[in-house]
């Protein structure tokens, strides 16, 4: 990972490196130019030294000839040493152009030394004329040396003219180069810094945008940051947080849904309980009274009435007990039969009840008071309004994993619209139900109990009777949830 710190370090080091290289190069070239000009100056100085040294010899020689002392002789020797050293220096000044002149020059110096020596020698031998002649000659040679120095310098200037001008031009160009380089580096640095800062601020900007979106509740937008530094790491962590929050929200939503459903089922239950309670004011009193009535009827010899009253009492007890728990289909069928007994007593011949029951299906669990309200509906809508009465068919049969319960009547039937309204619960149950539980209540409880929708279907058309079909799964797992949800 390229950290921001690393980036800054690299930028600064590169800049420093470039600056350093340029500084070194410029210094190097400057030094080279300076060395060249120093070299040139030195050449001229050396040549000038020759003239000075040769003149010094002449002066010393003259002094000696006038006053031949050891001191003066020493001085001559000293100046000879000096000029020899200078001669050595001059040797190094030879180049292709001036080799001839400089060689001549060196030999001239030799001649001067020799002549001076000869002059001293003659003087020591007291040959005045000889020594004077040699002195004159030495003087002449010294003059030639001066002239030659000028000649050589002149030639040097001529041949090196272009070179010198080159040096001057070069140093001027170097100055210009420095300025251009400075400007170039400045601009390049500006650009590099711009890009560099962008590489830091752009991810931050993206991150800010993402944080904004998140704060406004948009959790499903992926956070993308194209970089490879700490900010990318931050963005990644941020993205993970977003995903987690998103997951949590979905979970909470699901839970709320569940809660809502539970609430609804509880409300339904409450409603049915309320209804039943409303209808059962002091049910125990009613129940005891019914029992007393039954016995009285029996004692009075009205056995049929006694049985009827027992049925009513049983129905009433069932109603009291079973509303909030599941029962077996068998129990439901028993209650249904009791109810039909009562209705038969009411409608006598007008009511025909025919049942066809597959006994193997009777162990299936089913919410309490599911069938009774439907049968009651059939009685109310198909038997009561008909002068000639009607028939109610009740069938339980097995169909694969399903248990099919069919309740069919021979009434007037109903229109399609009414059927749908009924299923969707848009019809408010009319008063008159014995248990106070309507069709809609049954449908909802079945749905809540099995967790499967559309368990109840109605098959009807006007003037042809109505057939309500309930299908329930035969092998329902005996979980605790049904108990829990009904408690």
């Amino acid at each position, binding site marked *: 990972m390229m950290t921001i710190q690393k980036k800054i370090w690299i930028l600064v080091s590169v800049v420093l490196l470039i600056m350093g290289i340029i500084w070194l190069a410029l210094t190097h070239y400057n030094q080279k130019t300076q060395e060249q000009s120093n070299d040139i100056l030195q050449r001229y100085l050396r040549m000038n030294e020759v003239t000075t040294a040769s003149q010094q010899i002449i002066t010393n020689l003259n002094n000696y000839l006038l006053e031949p002392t050891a001191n003066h002789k020493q001085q001559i020797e000293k100046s000879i040493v000096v000029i020899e050293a200078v001669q050595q220096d001059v*040797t190094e000044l030879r180049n292709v152009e001036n080799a001839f002149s400089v060689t001549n020059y060196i030999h001239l110096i030799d001649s001067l030394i020799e002549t001076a020596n000869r002059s001293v020698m003659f003087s020591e031998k007291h040959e005045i004329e000889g020594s004077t002649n040699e002195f004159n000659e030495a003087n002449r040679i010294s003059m030639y040396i001066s002239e030659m120095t000028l000649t050589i310098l002149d030639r040097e200037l001529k041949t090196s003219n272009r070179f010198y001008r080159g040096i001057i031009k*070069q140093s001027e160009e170097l100055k210009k180069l420095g300025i251009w380089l400075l400007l170039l580096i400045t601009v390049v640095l500006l650009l590099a810094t711009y890009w560099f800062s962008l590489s830091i601020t752009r991810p931050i900007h993206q991150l800010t945008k993402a944080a904004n979106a998140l704060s406004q509740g948009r959790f499903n937008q992926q956070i993308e940051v194209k970089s490879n530094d700490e900010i990318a790491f931050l963005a990644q962590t941020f993205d993970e947080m977003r995903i987690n929050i998103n997951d949590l929200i979905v979970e909470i939503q699901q839970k709320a849904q569940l809660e809502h459903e539970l609430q609804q089922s509880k409300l339904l239950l409450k409603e049915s309980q309320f209804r039943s309670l409303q209808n059962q004011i002091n049910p125990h009193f009613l129940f005891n009274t019914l029992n007393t009535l039954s016995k009285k009827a029996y004692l009075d010899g009205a056995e049929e009435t006694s049985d009827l009253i027992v049925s009513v009492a049983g129905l009433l007890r069932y109603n009291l007990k079973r509303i909030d728990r599941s029962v077996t289909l068998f129990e439901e069928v028993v209650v249904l039969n009791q109810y039909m007994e009562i209705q038969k007593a009411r409608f006598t011949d007008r009511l025909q009840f025919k049942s066809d029951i597959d006994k193997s299906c009777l162990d299936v669990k089913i919410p309490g008071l599911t069938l009774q309200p439907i049968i009651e509906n059939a009685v109310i809508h198909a038997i009561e309004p008909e002068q000639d009465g009607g028939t109610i068919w009740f069938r339980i049969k097995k169909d694969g994993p399903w248990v099919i319960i069919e309740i069919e009547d021979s009434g007037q039937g109903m229109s399609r619209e009414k059927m749908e309204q009924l299923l969707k619960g848009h019809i408010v149950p009319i008063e008159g139900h014995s248990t106070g539980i309507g069709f809609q209540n049954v449908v909802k409880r079945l749905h809540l109990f099995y967790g499967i929708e559309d368990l109840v279907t109605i098959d009807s058309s006007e003037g042809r009777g109505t057939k309500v079909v309930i299908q329930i799964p035969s092998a329902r797992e005996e979980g605790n949830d049904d108990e829990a949800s009904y408690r």
Partner: protein
Amino acid sequence: MRKKFVFILVVLIMIFSYLTIASATKALRSTSDRPANLPFVSDTIRLVLITQELDTPFWNKVGQGALKQAQKENVQLEVWGSYGNNQDDFLKTMEVAIHSKVDGIIVQGLDNEEFKELTKVKAAFYGIPVITVANDVPVEESLRKTYVGSDQFEAGEMVARQLIKEMGTTGEVIILGDQEQAYYQKERLAGIEDVLSKYPDIEMIIRGTADAKEQVMATTQQLMNEVPRASAFIAINANYAGPMIQEIGRRTQVEPYYIYTFDDGVGSTALLEQGMLDGILAQKPEEMGSESVKRLMQWISGETVPLDSNGYLTETRMVKAEGEEP
């Protein structure tokens, strides 16, 4: 905004890069057209060609020939000298050359005492060989190793013969030379006299003059007054031909006169081309230069010791004004 900023920066970078590169190529170009140093004492042989008449056509040719030959022999040679017959400068140059201990001196002979002293005493003292070129100084007087150049006696003869051929065997001939004639002039004059003395009808008027333009003109004027019927002029010092012709031209037509001289004068060739001169004696200056270097090298390398002290003679021929050969 951002794009504009980046765009401007990129454009600036391009401009500055170009300027930097242009400047760098100029600044960092090596300016080493300075002659290379020679730290070691190279023992190449140094020769000097010394003349009194630098920058004259004749001596330029001599110098060219010598330089060419020196290059061939791989020795160093420089042409030194004085301008316009300045004898003091010439002698000083000679002395410098001797004190510089050059390996050999090729010199235009000068027929005077100082010159002879230098060659005989100084040069011999330092053991420097001296060769005379174009103008000779007798070996007995100068101890020169040899002479390279024309046979001046023969050259005089050729001029005289040409004169007779054109003028005929009668007439008065004015011969103009130096007051103190150098050896080569004496030779030339001897050659001319040798031929012309055979013709009794030819009268020679020999006159020396001082070495200044005015003097030459004055002498010419005087001669023309003295010998009004002169029909021919010969300038044995070729440098006098110019002033002489100028003076003649001032008085009368130049055409009828037969005027001859030698090619070692400053304006000889130019005068011939203008038709002022009837003929000049052409020598071989380039050959003199190369030959002298060759001979000197032969002596230095010990190939030919001693050199022929009579000299090595180069060709001479007459050149006519029209360019036709005599």
